[in-house]
């Protein structure tokens, strides 16, 4: 690969990294797993003046769960780590379902969860999970740390709210209000393919009551879509086939797909409806079984 010329820095502390970003002005780019940035350099879609490689920064590869159930995913935590994590399998069904569907096994060994959210690809899987889970991104800049709701973090295709001298240091998933249930279904043409359409669903249950719900859609709009109405329709009552139908319908309405070589707009909308209904039905069935 023959990218345009750039300066390369590999700082050893967060401070140093932020200073370099300041120095670079808008010209500097953070390099995490490189699984999105390197292809863009290769295709010369991106020509940053400087790459700030954050892979040497200490203390950013964590994947932990606080006493209250908050899950923290550090900026250098790779997709593969999440896929293999028992913590995730045990406590976070939406993330667990999505993990094996992100990219391919090779990409998963390098790409990072936080990098994926920052990249804000409308077809990226993790931003949708974060939105469905009401997650937040913690960013650090010269002025200190701030937390940004995932819903507000992504502002458009390949655009986020970070300032040019801010680094996203971790993704935070709040504790569930009750029991965390959820799922992720993705239609892809092949392993490693981006979604033709995908649906992230996270539902918190107390008894059979839905206390909180989030539904986010992938590949069916200019950016990740927060299907708020669909999710809200579920809150405050038990899952029922009527409620599921309604939510699936609302999710399909929230989609703004376009026809392309992956499929027609109407088909993608149909998939959103089908997948939303499938995930919720699955949750409903397993709840009934447990009861």
């Amino acid at each position, binding site marked *: 690969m023959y990218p345009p*010329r750039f300066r390369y820095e590999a700082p050893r502390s967060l401070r140093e990294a932020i200073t370099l970003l300041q120095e670079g002005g808008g010209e500097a780019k953070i390099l995490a797993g490189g699984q999105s940035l390197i292809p863009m350099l290769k295709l010369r879609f991106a020509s940053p003046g400087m790459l700030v490689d954050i892979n040497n920064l200490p203390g950013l590869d964590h994947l932990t769960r606080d006493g209250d159930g908050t899950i923290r995913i550090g900026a250098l935590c790779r997709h593969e780590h999440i896929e293999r994590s028992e913590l995730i399998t045990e406590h976070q069904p939406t993330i667990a379902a999505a993990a094996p569907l992100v990219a391919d096994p090779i990409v998963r060994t390098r790409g990072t969860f936080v990098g994926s959210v920052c990249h804000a690809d409308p077809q990226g899987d993790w931003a949708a999970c974060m939105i469905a889970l009401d997650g937040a991104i913690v960013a650090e800049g010269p002025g200190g740390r701030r937390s940004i709701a995932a819903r507000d973090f992504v502002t458009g295709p390949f655009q986020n709210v970070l300032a040019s001298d801010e680094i996203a240091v971790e993704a935070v998933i709040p504790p569930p209000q009750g029991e965390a249930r959820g799922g992720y279904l993705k*239609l892809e043409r092949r392993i490693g*393919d981006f979604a*033709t359409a995908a649906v992230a669903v996270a539902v918190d249950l107390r008894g059979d009551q839905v206390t909180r719900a989030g539904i986010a859609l992938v590949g069916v709009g200019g950016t990740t879509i927060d299907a708020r109405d669909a999710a809200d329709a579920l809150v405050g009552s038990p899952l029922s086939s009527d409620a599921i139908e309604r939510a699936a319908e609302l999710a399909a309405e929230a989609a703004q797909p376009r026809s*392309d*070589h992956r499929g*027609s707009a109407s088909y993608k909308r149909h998939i959103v409806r*089908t997948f939303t209904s499938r995930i919720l039905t699955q949750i409903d069935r397993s709840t009934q079984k447990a009861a």
Partner: protein
Amino acid sequence: MAIDEVKIGGMGARQKRVEDNRFIRGKGNYVDDIVLPGMLHMEILRSPLAHARIRSIDVSKAWDIPGVRLVLTGETLAARNLAWMPTLSYDTQAVLATDKVRFQGQEVAAVVADDPYIAKDAVEAIIVDYEPLPAIVNPDQAMAPDAPLIRDDKANQPDNKIFDWEVGDREGTDRAFTEADHVSTIEMHYPRSHPSPIEACGSVADFDRSTGKLTVYMTSQAPHIIRAAVAMVAELPEHQIRIISPDIGGGFGNKVPVYPGYVISILASILAERPVKWIEDKTGNLISTGFGRDVYLKGELALRKDGRILGVRMHTTSDHGAFFSDAQPSKFKIGLMHSAFACYDIPSAHLTATGVYTNKAPGGVAYRCSFRVTEAMFFQERMVHAAADELGLDQAEIRRVNFVRDDDFPHRTPFGFLTDSGQYTKCLDLGLAAIDYEGFRREQAAAREQGRLLGIGISTMTEPLGAGNSREYDILGIKMFDAAELRVHMTGRAILRTGAKTQGQGHETTWAQIVAHELGIPADDVVVEEGDTDTAPFGMGTYASRSTPVAGAAVSMVARKIRAKARKIAAHLLEVSEEDIEWELGRFYVRSAPDRGVTIQECAMAAYSNVPDGMEPGLENHAYYDPPNLTWPFAAYIVTVEVDPDTGVWDVLRVVAVDDCGVRINPMIVEGQIMGGLTEAYAMANMQFITFDADGNCVGSNYMDYLLPTAWETPGFELHEVVTPCPHHPIGAKGVGECATVGGPAAFVNAVMDALKDTGVRNIDMPLLPDRVHQALTTGQDVSGAPPVDPEAS
């Protein structure tokens, strides 16, 4: 005691591939591994537009970049009469565009620089002023009365049509159709695909002014043809041209043609008087080099009620892109399309074919098939499938009813080819038993009760391989034979060279096995070399599954010549007359006293130390093999699928393959070829296509969009064999490299169509993306053409 042939790696031995030793250690030597002193690097500027007039090209900013050595445009080439070059289909192709660009990705300029980064920067600094013209992306547009003329560079080219061609018996076929109980009609498109070898194309050209010698390392499946072409086009003396194809990372037909990049790198080396390396990137490979297929069919079968086919009518319209540069050696404009229906006994057939120019990449190569055979067999098996459904006949039965019988060879095919051998019904029945056809039909009926959609698809075909015979096949007048040269050293070790060129087929293993079979020299004692025109004997290269049928036969023949000489030496050593000598593998002995004998190794030593009076010393020879006919392997592929009615997603349940490729030299390599071919067949049926938006932008220019299946989604394959030796091949082999790519796709599509049978849908064009299957399920209508492409989306 005769040697155990399998132990010495002879015929039938599952030898591990010797070449893999270096490949799995990363020790292969590909074109990009070649580094020569003083070597410069070349990068090509490609057109972003599909159709545009070039108003001007400003290269001054490129020249300003330090380290730039040459900037070449069409004008530079035109001054040397090299702006255009001939194609293998007797058309012309632009090397660098002078007047217009005619497809997205066309070569417009080239920069030669000290390193590839500089070359790439400089290419981006070239400013081209284009005047956009309307793009033509399909044959309908091309043939519209007011269509813009793509090839306005050619005299006598009033429209975008390349050819009208026909073959077969028009009147006889018309008669068959009037006598038929039923006529089955179907239209379909075999979409554009790309061979996409993992290694893209490239070359290192090294012109040495002091010796006048031009050496070119390049990714060619046919180095000798390249040497001839360079000699003819560049008017360089042939003995001063050395083409070396080192290790090749896959070809699949993509590396047969001569591409502009090769030509420009050669000229650049001559001008710069330094070696020049050009390595194409993957996008360059996908958008500009030889593609496969892109053919539309209107097919008709005339049938009797019992399924007997009385006549076949086919009309094909092929989209060749901007230049007619199909890489094929026959006089037939649409290649071997008329090999269709060769396995069926059909009285009459008629094919008409139209070829058109479009603003798409040129070079309809034989992507893992003998020149349009893939399309022919796909169309055939889809037509038969549809006809059986219409007549309410069983899919296996309609094939059995029409198969050429085992005792009916040699057989004249409906379009006039001569097939020589086969056991078609046996192959099909073996496959049906393996998949438990009856059992599956019961399971399918039961599943349907529960709303589940299961399907089974059959594809049976015999295809012509091994181009050619020299009467009918040539490339630029050069006849389609092949040669082998064998030199046995005094210790009985040997070097074998052929004019073929392995690109993953395992020649280094297989050829040694043929030598082992003929001479009893262990395969491990034979080194095989190919690809260097200064050392290898003449040959037409490796494609069309022709290596074993032609070069492999030459290996056999040269080994037999060696054996004949060794026999004379043996007689001398054993002090008997030659007539008293008998041969068993690896050893000559006296007929009347079998324990008196000499090994082939002893004969080899004697060839250098103790030859009979009057005999030339040494033990080496060569053989040219001109095949008497094509070879005709047969295959039956059977696939079962389950279609998800909610999403249109279909999963493959089982794939059973029965291949009769004649005698198998290395069964493991044969199986590898079949598995690879089935994988490609699955890919084309399921996910793979190159399409274009209305502006002629190529959708499929990278591996995110042009999908190669991985181990994850590729189904498992169950392989079976039947062996009907080829009667005219020295070791009875028929070739196998492409059978599964050719015969496989229809089995997958037929399986899905079988699952959808109740809906009345008769055809979904490949690839059978879930969207398209779902659309067919919900509308009950056929789904044709390329998938939708939103111009904004690309």
